[in-house]
């Protein structure tokens, strides 16, 4: 599928893509670390919002800034910045993310002096009654700061166009995920993740165009390969597509994921374009059905969403890729383990680091898949 190659190419050459975008659009590039940053506002200001993602290469440049026990994802992101690979990024932004992301944001802003380093408080208890009004004011303030930064007000038309572009893109991603519900999904989990990740570093209009082509291809394609075991993938902030490809090569298909580099990034209804659109945007960020465990306090939304995925995608097993040192996800393990056990759903947590121990993973994943297959035969 040639269009798939384009996603791969853009993601692999994302720094080059962003630099070319800057020249072509005479705009700025803003790096964000977590999906609670309302990138629609940045996009409306002729800025390319890009998710800051590391390289998964071993590195030795972050030691003066970060202690040894730190999440590999955020460490790698900082390493990329310190090595100058993100030199084209004009500004960076976070919305009260975990301490690890905060550290990367903080060291980046302190040592690389971007022209905008903006952080705002995204509540942890998102369902609190006071949150929508507070977030509305926060997003308005954020809009002001972005306007000052780009030196131009964001018009209502620009904001509407941005929201509409994001709505379309998210709707297409939903369609892509919908195809995976089928008995034989026409696309692998790894390819799907590559498409989603590419969307985080591309201009949404370019990404939408490629997505449309992809969906057109997939609609005419009948999945022929036995999907093997249907897996749900849970993960911390995880971006290593090759690990997913590796798992799938052992006789499985990731039919659905619940992670911020996957479904959580776009899941949820479109933003309302009627009336005060900022209210609609707040509604998206506050009420998205799929929630980071860091912001899933008191009323739990993440776990019911996971169980909906299990049912809708006819999941046979769950793999949880837990980044080393990731606290927010570490908390959900016992609850999920007990829940999956009660439903008779096999569950495999795997700890991941900057590099992957392929031999160990192979043994564990193969045994896990064998167990599920045996269960299916004896059922």
């Amino acid at each position, binding site marked *: 599928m040639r269009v798939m190659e384009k996603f791969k190419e853009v993601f692999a050459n994302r720094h080059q893509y962003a630099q070319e975008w800057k020249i072509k659009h005479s705009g700025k590039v803003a790096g964000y670390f977590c999906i609670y940053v309302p990138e629609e506002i940045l996009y409306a200001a002729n800025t390319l919002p890009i998710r800051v993602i590391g390289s998964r290469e071993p590195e030795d440049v972050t030691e003066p800034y970060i202690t040894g026990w730190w999440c590999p994802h955020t460490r790698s992101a900082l390493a990329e910045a310190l090595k100058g690979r993100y030199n084209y990024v004009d500004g960076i932004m976070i919305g009260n993310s975990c301490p690890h992301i905060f550290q990367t944001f903080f060291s980046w802003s302190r040592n690389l002096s971007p022209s905008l380093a903006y952080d705002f408080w995204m509540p942890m208890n998102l369902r609190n009654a006071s949150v929508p009004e507070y977030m509305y004011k926060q997003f308005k303030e954020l809009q002001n700061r972005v306007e000052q930064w780009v030196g131009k007000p964001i018009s209502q038309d620009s904001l509407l166009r941005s929201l509409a572009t994001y709505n379309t893109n998210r709707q297409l991603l939903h369609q892509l995920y919908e195809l995976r519900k089928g008995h034989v999904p026409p696309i692998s989990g790894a390819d799907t993740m590559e498409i989603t990740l590419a969307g985080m570093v591309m201009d949404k209009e370019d990404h939408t165009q490629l997505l449309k082509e992809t969906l057109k291809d997939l609609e005419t394609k009948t999945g022929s390969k036995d999907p093997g075991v249907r897996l749900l993938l849970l993960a911390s902030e995880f971006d290593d597509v090759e690990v997913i490809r590796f798992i799938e090569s052992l006789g499985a298909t990731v039919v659905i994921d619940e992670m911020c580099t996957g479904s959580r990034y776009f899941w949820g209804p479109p933003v309302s374009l009627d009336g005060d659109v900022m209210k609609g945007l707040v509604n998206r960020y506050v009420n998205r059905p799929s929630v980071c465990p*860091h912001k899933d306090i008191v009323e739990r939304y993440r776990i019911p969403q996971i169980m909906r995925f299990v049912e809708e995608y006819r999941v046979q097993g769950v793999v949880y890729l837990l980044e080393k040192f990731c606290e927010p996800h570490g*908390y959900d*393990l016992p609850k999920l383990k007990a829940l999956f056990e009660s439903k008779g759903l096999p569950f495999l947590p795997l700890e991941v680091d900057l590099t992957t121990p392929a031999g160990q993973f192979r043994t564990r994943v193969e045994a896990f898949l064998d167990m599920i297959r045996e269960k299916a035969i004896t059922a």
Partner: protein
Amino acid sequence: MNNTKYETRPVESWAKMKELRRTHFKHTWQAADHGEPIVMGMTEALLGYLAGLGNFADPSYGPYYTKLMRNPPELIKVLEATEAKGITRDVCSSMRCYLGQLYLGMSNTAPNGSKIKPTFLFQVTNCHTMAQTGNVFSEYLDVPYLSIDLPYDDTPLARDYVYQQMVEGIPWIEKVTGRPYDDEKLIEAVKYEWETMVLWAKIVASTRAIPTPLDLRHLWSLRMPMLTMRHKKEGVEYCRMLYDETQWRIKNNISARGMERMRFLHEGFPPYHYIAILKQPNEYGAIFVIMENSQGHGAWDRYADGTWEPTKTLKELGREIRTREDALRAEVELYVTYMMSSTWYPKYRATEAVKRAKDWHCDAAVLGLDRGCHGYQVSIMETKRELQKAGFPVGSYEHSQSDPREFSLTQTLDRLESFMESLGLTRIGEASGEKAEEAID
């Protein structure tokens, strides 16, 4: 190097602290008998807000935390109980200690074996692990959970947001406890809370004196009533007593440990299971005088150059608290404006640490690189670099605040001793026959 020998004496308020600590735990187990609500959680903030309920018990997430820190073999069993449930070892070690108490049934079991049932859980969300621990407790014990989201930066918007949440929380509290919320009690408690927090800031500020009247090990334990009864009359009286004693010690040149050849700043939490680390420099006639966390329990005015000065009392501000709104807004201000330490917001930490080291007349700094707490590690290496740039020698040791399995005493002492020796310090008694003061525990 200051080779002066000073007079030293035990801290007399120490006994009062221990008495208040006993009272606190006794009250925890007896509250239910008196029909008082039991509010579980790391209720170290907004105590005055909860006082609108009248008397309430506050067992934290598990009342045996300190006891376990003094008994590493038992502590390890509790940590293992958490891991057996599937919580990873990367999660905050203090929270793992609380979770282990939960899973072993200790959190709600009195020393005599009787059980208590929390009325509700209460947690501010400046620390995500505490907030997530609240989730686990709430689900495990089937107890309702109230969280107040506490932004880390002080803005009018943040203050209004916290205020709104507190207003909305009151009917919730009334519903789950079946008790009316008493504004008079709230007002009284907020006044006490403001008073104790200013007094605590003044006590900590006093340790800038040479010789320091109290050292960091003293402050570490003496702060305990700040965690549990800063909103009570007893809290004010205790802080006043301690403040007066501190002033008397300064006036009479009474030193914390008898010698302070060098004064050290400590950054990062120490290992709670080996708190004697805070006395380690005493063997070299040196002393830890300050760390940000000890300051953090007070109410401070913070300046752009990194200076912290105790803020004014309500009386000094000429501020009256007459209504629920007055009290809640004062409470918000205390925690968003005056108390919030840079613990969870690293933007100012490096600058403030350098200024702290200068204001407390420190000669060097030691970093506790704590694997157990991720939040407080944010920016610590940046802080190290700033301290070094400002000319302060910096040593460090690695540990986990509540997990003794991630701490090597021998290696740590080796590191610290090497650091002391690199500064030209020698062990007391080795060269001159001097004797270190008896450690006060």
